[in-house]
């Protein structure tokens, strides 16, 4: 090795992409060093520049300025040699879906020049490590998301590279597989001394890394061990509650007060990050408040860093729930009994029962493919059920689907916006589509532009908007007709934590105004913002209840304070143990 002890080193790395006449800077003078023999996390939201950095490191892109060296070789000039010695797993690993597990392995073994004599032992080792041994004959396309990721990892590891680049290996993967992937990575580092650079948008994964590089909008925020990031917050993180006040109302009171960096609904209390050690005086002065100090998390540190660059907009979300919502109190608005949906012989939804009350935030939590989106589409009347009863806003969906649809808003995973219409045109279109006309339409559009701060982007095409703004626009469109029930399908996947907070602030305001909200998510921490949760896997609901109650299901002597993820894993694995 060279004099430097870094296995990957970037200096002044800059890369911009041009689409049409727009130039986007993906990386802006990034310098960083990755230490050998540990896991380094490259952490940031979508669009931060993580994938661009990985591709530059693998020699798949050439930088505009600066240099990057991997394993002591210049990744740009010596790209073939670099590619021959490192392992790189792209975000969507290129598995050939019509080839079996064994055939995919054989292809990549051929391509990486693994000697035929070494193969049987290496295959066996990798299949054992990834738990794929029973499925070697199965087509890769028939594997679950988690299994595909593990097979991709196995293909990358065939030649045991010294440096492993993993681009968001855990995105969209169920918590059980996520844990297994991390176990594999940790074993490689400890057992084989491999160096790993892993990118992720999940802030909770940062704590598993030996070192983290925080990246935001193409710039490095900070680099160091994760403990150093949270250590700065010692004495600044609090769990706050007040008897007789709903956590959501308390959150609205606390958010944006002087001295409060971050406030977050978390289960039955509000999590607070103070600007300085100790409870902010302004908060301490509030009567009847019970505050208890809690250990800081990595996410708190990340938010703290972001807020220093980008102060919070101190404005209360102003949401009206529409006339209908203000009416009846705690009535049941969604009632689902024995819901089934089959696609061919695949049971996407396999006997789901749900009851959601007015003004509730109800979360459906599950991995990709658990049946969340299918359930949603049935509830919105977009897809007929194969069997079962569905009542939404008191209307039977089988008979009055369109009447029910007029009273619901739906925001889909991909933000169904017209990319080649600008913001104002999108708003006008959706207002017209929901049957708003004349003064009412103008009033609602004006409300949306003001409430979602869209004015400065009004003339921009939706496709060119930053992700956070796309999400705002999509939500504005879904709220055009003052729906009394709002369906949000994976609304925050990929957006940065600040945008996610702003989003939840609006959701809270809507719920307080009486709108019922159903949300699907695979972010475990996000599920804590919900009043009640249903945990879904393989088309079934495993448990329903308040977040605290669900967490309690996993409480054991060894783990007295389980996280929602622990609870999820315990629930998913329970039937397997019983069988």
């Amino acid at each position: 090795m060279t004099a430097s002890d870094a296995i990957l080193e970037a200096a002044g790395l800059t890369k911009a992409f041009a689409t049409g006449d727009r130039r986007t800077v993906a990386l802006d003078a990034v310098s960083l060093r990755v230490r050998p023999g540990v896991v380094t996390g490259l952490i940031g939201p979508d669009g931060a520049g993580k994938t661009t950095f990985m591709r530059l490191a693998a020699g798949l892109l050439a930088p505009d300025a600066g240099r990057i060296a991997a394993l002591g070789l210049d990744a740009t000039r010596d790209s073939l040699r670099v590619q021959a010695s490192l392992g790189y797993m792209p975000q969507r690993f290129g598995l050939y879906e019509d080839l079996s597990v064994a055939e995919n392995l054989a292809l990549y073994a051929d391509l990486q020049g693994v000697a035929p004599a070494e193969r049987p032992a290496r295959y066996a080792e990798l299949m054992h490590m990834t738990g794929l041994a029973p499925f070697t004959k199965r087509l890769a396309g028939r594997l679950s998301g988690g299994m595909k990721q593990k097979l991709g990892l196995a293909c990358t590891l065939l030649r045991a590279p010294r440096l492993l680049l993993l681009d968001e290996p855990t995105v969209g993967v169920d918590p059980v597989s996520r844990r297994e992937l991390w176990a594999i990575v940790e074993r490689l580092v400890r057992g084989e001394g491999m160096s790993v650079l892993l990118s992720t948008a999940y802030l909770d994964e940062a704590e598993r890394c030996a070192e983290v590089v925080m990246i935001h909008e193409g710039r490095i925020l900070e680099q160091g061990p994760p403990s150093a990031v949270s250590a700065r917050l010692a004495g600044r993180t609090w769990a706050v509650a007040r008897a007789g006040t709903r956590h959501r109302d308390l959150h609205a009171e606390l958010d944006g007060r002087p001295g409060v960096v971050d406030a977050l609904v978390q289960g039955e209390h509000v999590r607070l990050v103070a600007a300085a050690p100790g409870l902010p005086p302004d908060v301490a002065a509030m009567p009847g408040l019970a505050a208890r100090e809690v250990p800081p998390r990595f996410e708190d540190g990340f938010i703290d860093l972001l807020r220093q660059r980008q102060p919070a907009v101190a404005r209360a979300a102003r949401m009206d729930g529409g006339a209908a919502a203000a009416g009846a109190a705690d009535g049941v608005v969604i009632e689902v009994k024995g819901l089934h949906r089959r696609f061919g012989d695949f049971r996407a939804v396999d006997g789901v029962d749900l009851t959601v009350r007015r003004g509730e935030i109800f979360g459906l939590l599950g991995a990709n493919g658990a049946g969340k989106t299918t359930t949603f589409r049935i509830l919105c009347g977009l897809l007929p059920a194969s069997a079962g009863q569905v009542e939404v806003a008191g209307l039977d969906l089988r008979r009055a689907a369109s009447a029910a649809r007029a009273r619901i808003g739906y925001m889909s995973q991909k933000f169904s916006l017209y990319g080649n219409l600008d913001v104002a045109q999108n708003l006008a279109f959706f207002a017209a589509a929901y049957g708003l006309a004349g003064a009412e339409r103008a009033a609602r559009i004006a409300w949306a532009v003001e409430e979602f701060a869209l004015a400065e982007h009004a003339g921009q095409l939706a496709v060119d908007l930053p992700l956070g703004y796309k999400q705002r626009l999509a939500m504005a469109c879904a709220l055009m007709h003052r729906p009394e029930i709002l369906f949000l399908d994976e609304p925050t996947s990929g957006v940065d934590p600040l945008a996610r907070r702003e989003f939840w602030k609006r959701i809270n305001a809507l719920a307080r105004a009486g709108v019922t909200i159903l949300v699907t998510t695979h972010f475990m921490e996000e599920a804590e913002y919900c009043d009640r949760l249903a945990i879904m896997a393989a088309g079934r609901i495993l448990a329903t209840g308040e977040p605290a109650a669900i967490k309690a299901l996993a409480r054991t002597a060894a783990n007295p304070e389980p996280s929602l993820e622990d609870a999820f894993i315990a629930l998913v694995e329970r039937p397997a143990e019983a069988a």
Partner: protein
Amino acid sequence: MSAARGGSAMRLRGLLRKEFLQIVRDPSSIAIAFLMPVFLLALFGYGVSLDAEDVPIALVQDAPSRDGADFLASLRGTPSFAPRDAASMAEAERLLREGTVSGIVRVPADFPRRLREASGAPVQVVVSGVDANTARLVQGYVEGAWGNWLAARAARQGQEAATPVDLQPRTWFNGELRSRNYLVPGLVAIIMTLIGALLTALVMAREWERGTMEALMVTPASMTEVLLGKLGAYFVLGTGGMLLSVAMAVWLFEVPLRGSFWVLWACSSLFLLAALGMGLTISTLARSQFVAGQVAIIATFLPAFLLSGFIFDIGAMPPVVQAITHVVVARYFVAIVQTLFLAGDVWAVIVPNAAALAIMAAAFLAITWRKSRKRLD
């Protein structure tokens, strides 16, 4: 160095095996490579015909006469027409307007009288010009039938027919004048364009879409090896399509193959390389299957269909369009296959066209090779 070459062979073998497994397992590849040819051949072999057969015509006699009936009877006997009698010219015109018939043959009232005069007797032929091709055919056939009838009548009366020129037509290469005989060989070019250009452009774009290209790029495999893998696999598939088409042409549609099969094989291989080169060139530009498919249809398939001389004679096109046909690869190959099937090994046709194919194949493959770098931007 020898180790590196061994590695290259291993990589290439791996890539080829992958391509074949994918072809075998992907129903759409099989459909384009084998079902499309069968469908196109059946369509053009049985369905589309440029010959006039059973053309509906109306026969009108203004006044019944023996001579008139005799002439009309001669039209009834031919396989070219499906005649029907109309009571009056007005009815016949109605049938023509409704599209029930494509032409009218009218024998006027003074036909028997004027037949005996020196100036000769008139027969009126009205054709629907909507389909110009059929119109010309009807006209030609009726004229022929008229001449034949006059000659036969003269012979019956022991006279020489008063025709100034005695035309004795003799058709070369396609004695029966079956349009099938030149359509079916031309189809080989169309089918190989489909497999070579369309299918190849699609499967390359699919690698980009599914993210497999990025994974291939970070392996030690070079872009040349990836391209050779695709080229090899689809060359074999295209040859299969060619053999299938030739076999169906010869044994099912009984199109004569007068030239050498091996010359056909060699020229097909050249054309296939050019088609594959076009497909790969498209895929270096279009990285989504949708765009690649559109571009391949517009830039390769449609020109092969319309501008290659497969159906429409290049000599009859306006000079500008004729000039454009020189960049249509299929044009050179259609000339070769039609010659090989119907005329034989005419080297004066084969050599220059094959040379053009070789140049175009080399050009497209060179563009592809230069354009593909192991870089994502």
